[in-house]
């Protein structure tokens, strides 16, 4: 009485890791640029990060065909929003839109593991982390993808605020400066690259702050 299984899957996992860290007035969104399939490398130079709005960027690991489709969908929705409201979407609004978009395909999901990062209405950094079907939460930092199990505990160690029982309530955003946060991200990826075979080649970092958007790259191990 064993169930018959499909001999074809609509999904593939292209690997990769994404990280986002929110600061007091900046947000860092980073991802490696390796795209794999099984034990093969498809390319060493594929961007997993897209800028959805002036102050909002999304990094997604998982099945890159689904990721690309998701990015295009959100970009089109953002254009419609701009036509209707005469302004850019805020990051919390985009966060809700992403969640709704993912849940819309609850029964044939986007195989995409997303972190959304940007500046909120007050100019403070914000990060939203998602599962494949749209469950999301605003946090101060997050990682998704194949290296997330290696990176997340490290970020918890470095960034997690003291016990929530402590009063006054502490903000989730890190007190680190922008350059310190960048160094932290680079450290995370350098470490994850050592032990995760799907993470490596190059690190792409997008920094969003009041001055605008900046992109930085760092070489990673290619083995």
């Amino acid at each position, binding site marked *: 009485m064993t169930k018959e299984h499909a001999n074809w899957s609509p999904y593939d996992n292209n690997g990769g890791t994404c990280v986002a860290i929110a600061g007091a007035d900046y947000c860092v969104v980073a991802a490696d640029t390796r795209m794999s399939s099984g034990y093969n490398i498809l390319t060493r130079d594929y961007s997993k990060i897209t800028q959805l709005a*002036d102050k909002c960027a999304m990094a997604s690991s998982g099945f890159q065909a689904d990721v690309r489709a998701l990015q*295009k969908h959100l970009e*089109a929705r953002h*254009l*419609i929003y*701009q*036509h209707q*409201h*005469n*302004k*850019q979407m805020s990051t919390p609004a985009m966060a809700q839109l992403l969640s709704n978009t993912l849940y819309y395909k609850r029964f044939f999901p986007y195989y995409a593991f997303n972190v959304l990062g940007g500046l909120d209405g007050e100019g403070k950094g914000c990060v939203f982390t998602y599962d494949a079907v749209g469950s999301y939460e605003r946090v101060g930092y997050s990682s998704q993808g194949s290296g997330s199990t290696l990176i997340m505990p490290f970020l918890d160690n470095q960034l997690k605020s003291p016990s929530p029982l402590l009063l006054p309530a502490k903000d989730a955003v890190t007190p680190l400066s922008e350059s310190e946060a960048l160094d932290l991200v680079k450290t995370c990826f350098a470490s994850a690259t050592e032990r995760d075979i799907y993470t490596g080649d190059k690190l792409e970092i997008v920094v969003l702050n009041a001055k605008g958007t900046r992109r930085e790259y760092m070489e990673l191990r290619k083995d």
Partner: protein
Amino acid sequence: MFRNQYDTDVTTWSPAGRLFQVEYAMEAVKQGSAAIGLRSKTHVVLASVNKANSELSSHQKKIFKVDDHIGVAIAGLTADGRVLSRYMRSECINYSYSYESKLPVGRLVVQLADKAQVCTQRSWKRPYGVGLLVGGLDESGAHLYYNCPSGNYFEYQAFAIGSRSQAAKTYMERKFETFAESSRENLIKDALFALRETLQGEKLTSTICTVAVVGIGEAFHILDKETVQALINEFEIAGEEAPANEAAPEDQGGDAQPGGDVQPGAADQGPADEGVAPMDI
């Protein structure tokens, strides 16, 4: 003017082979306030007269951004114009989504024209009561089209629609041969002159008009009031004296460059402000 017997239905021909409902729809365009468009090889300028009903109310929006490379100015039933603009925006977005490139202007106007034609051949519909001046840029250059309620469309070097548009057309007929090689600033200047012609002596100020530009390297955007007023002042076309069109700009000297006290080129180089969406008015 009244051809009552065959004008009840859009699907009824007159014995002379006319569809009166369609012609009546074109009348609605003529009653709307003026909108003009002109193009050079590299830019298209759209301008419209925006008269508010009263001092207390806001101006009616007659120029819409459709995409970074296309904008539209309307005359007639502005509600119909708004709906068609939404359709055009949707078409541009869907095309970009599928082909990751910009919808060519010529394709968009055909789709618009076909949409208008449908309303001339359904007994349960009425024609759109709006004329559209579609200005845009694509790989084959700068284009200006006029779409009318009948479902026809034509390409123009320069055109004007709405009330007293003939005055603007007369001005542009004299000068259209210079438009192709015109600089961006001169094109805007000609647009303002043409617009002034439709005001029939009334003073042209930035409060009663809207000007929009699209060009190579310049996304479609509406010029802000300060920029427009500065241009009006610079070209001395407030309209108080008789049109000394050729003489006035020469007096300013160097009107080819946006120099002097005013920097219209810098001020309206696309949406310069932070936090202002590209779609902003």
